[in-house]
């Protein structure tokens, strides 16, 4: 497989954990909160999914268990931030550290075990297209579902009343409350959604993308997802585009070789963070407020 074919085949799968986690966090931030615990929520999702798939053989159960567990951890964040109005930066870090620790605690005895990933689906006609057919268009079911889900999320946020309410809660919680919107409930649901998405992202990483669990396997993808939300300026389409871009970059060294670039891989690995800082500067000039 040539470098280009490898990229075409691998980018979507590499981007998927980033995409799912970032879309979840985007909804959280749209309601005016900031949960820094993505890395931990993804890690615990990855561990739980792996354990579940190892014992049951069912990816469906694995993804569901991961989503539930990460939602539970996200609810701890909600208790602190929405419940007792604790500092959200500290609260996010608390559940992040907790999630990372728990993932290692649960997962340690499953290290170096293997499970089956998900098969790539051959779609008639599409898979026969030269070059992109057997690579870009031959993906597992989760990739296809996630693309559908992304479109659905875009539709909800931009074309429905619920999307407007979420935006209202985020932009002016007091105003939203005064016209009777359930601010606390909306935020609670958003945080739960963010947690579930991180769980799914972790599950994909540990049971499909690389079907094995290792301590520290999330390897900073939670932070990249956090950066991605800013990069995508809280818009579904741009976040999805950013996920692809960051996904390619995360293939780092391989990409560099494929493109024949002589840069050290660390430069490529730093690019998402550099671009995010640049993005923050550009958008903050136009916006006031903290984030």
């Amino acid at each position: 497989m040539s470098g280009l074919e490898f990229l075409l085949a691998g980018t979507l799968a590499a981007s998927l954990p980033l995409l799912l986690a970032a879309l979840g966090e985007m909804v959280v931030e749209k309601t005016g909160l900031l949960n820094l615990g993505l890395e931990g929520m993804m890690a615990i999702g990855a561990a739980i999914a792996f354990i579940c798939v190892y014992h049951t053989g069912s990816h469906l159960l694995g993804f569901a268990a991961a989503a539930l567990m990460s939602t539970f951890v996200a609810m701890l964040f909600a208790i602190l931030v929405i419940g007792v109005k604790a500092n959200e930066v500290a609260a996010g870090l608390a559940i992040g550290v907790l999630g990372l620790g728990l993932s290692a605690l649960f997962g340690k005895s499953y290290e170096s075990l293997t499970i089956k990933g998900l098969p790539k689906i051959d779609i008639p006609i599409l898979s026969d297209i030269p070059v992109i057919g057997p690579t870009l268009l031959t993906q597992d079911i989760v990739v296809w579902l996630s693309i559908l889900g992304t479109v659905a999320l875009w539709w909800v946020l931009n074309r429905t009343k619920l999307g407007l309410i979420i935006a209202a809660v985020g932009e002016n919680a007091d105003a939203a409350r005064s016209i009777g919107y359930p601010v606390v409930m909306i935020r609670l649901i958003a945080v739960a959604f963010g947690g579930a998405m991180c769980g799914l992202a972790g599950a994909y990483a540990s049971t499909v993308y690389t079907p094995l669990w290792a301590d520290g396997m999330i390897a900073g993808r939670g932070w990249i997802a956090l950066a991605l939300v800013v990069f995508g300026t809280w818009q579904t389409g741009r976040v999805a585009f950013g996920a692809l871009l960051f996904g390619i970059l995360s293939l780092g060294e391989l990409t560099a070789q494929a493109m024949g670039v002589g840069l050290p891989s660390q430069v490529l690995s730093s690019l998402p963070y550099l671009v995010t800082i640049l993005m923050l500067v550009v958008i903050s000039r136009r916006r006031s407020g903290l984030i």
Partner: protein
Amino acid sequence: MLTAPVLALVLTCLASLVLFAALGKPAGAALHALLLKPFLSWYSFSEVLLKMAPLLLIAQGLAIGFRANVFNIGAEGQFIVGALCASALPVYFPDGDFPLMLPAMIAFGALGGTVYALIAAALRTRFGASEILVTLMLALIAVQILNYLLLGPWKDPRGFNFPQTVMFPDNAMLPILFDGTRTNISLIFALLASVFAYLMMQHHFRGYQLRTAGLAPRAALYAGFSAPRMVWLGLGLGGLAAGIAGASEVAGPLGQLQRSVTSGYGYAAIIVAYVGGLNPLGIIGSSFLISVIYIGGDSATVSAGLPVAAVEVFQGLLLFFYLMTFTLIRFRIEIDRKVPA
């Protein structure tokens, strides 16, 4: 003032007991190892003091910023850059023939950490970019810079291809505080920083300004306290402390620059700062507690078969319960049954 942290510690112990028992680990032995073992020998106690130095130093710096609502989340990055800058001297003068090697290293580290943090201050004051995200991104970039140097130009040519620099010469190492241990004078730096933080935050006008900026930003504005100056000061002092801590790490227990310099002190120090109530005296206590848990965690891996991650679980639970009890103790809960119109 001690109610919240003590209550948090008790709840954390209870929760860990349940968790460890549920995982089939000897829960009692685990807790014994985590909290008591570090006190049972002079050597392990000296290791607690060794761990405490960077945590205490960084947390004091961070807490100053946090109290002014300046959230420097990337102390880990400033710590790494401090370690890098300090390491430059012994890497380029491996025979130690540089005048005042050690003081120069500490100064380089301090400068590096400060400048790295001030990037975030500049972007915040000039463009309004969130320092939370900028410091975090900078921390992730710092790890890549470290990897680049260790795999490339700074790799020890005789180091069997390990990603680490040459071992530092003797005059690049911090003096040991107690014979037969690894505890070095960076503990003194940390205690001095604590005295400085106490005097500044509780007794100096600048501390009053910082606290006001945090508690009542609008009041600070009306009083004419410069908001940008609070950002520069909060981030700069945090970076300074983290940079010195980073320099002390390579000139102390590590003795060279290696990958394990990214051991998460920068993030753990945030937990230390909060559990210490952002109070200079409280932080001395919390840094000691977290250090005990680190050293205890090491022995728990042997005696109770716990993975190293148990320490993270404990830290996470501690901060969680602290944040919860802190509010519940300060405020009385009233259920408002009236639905707002």
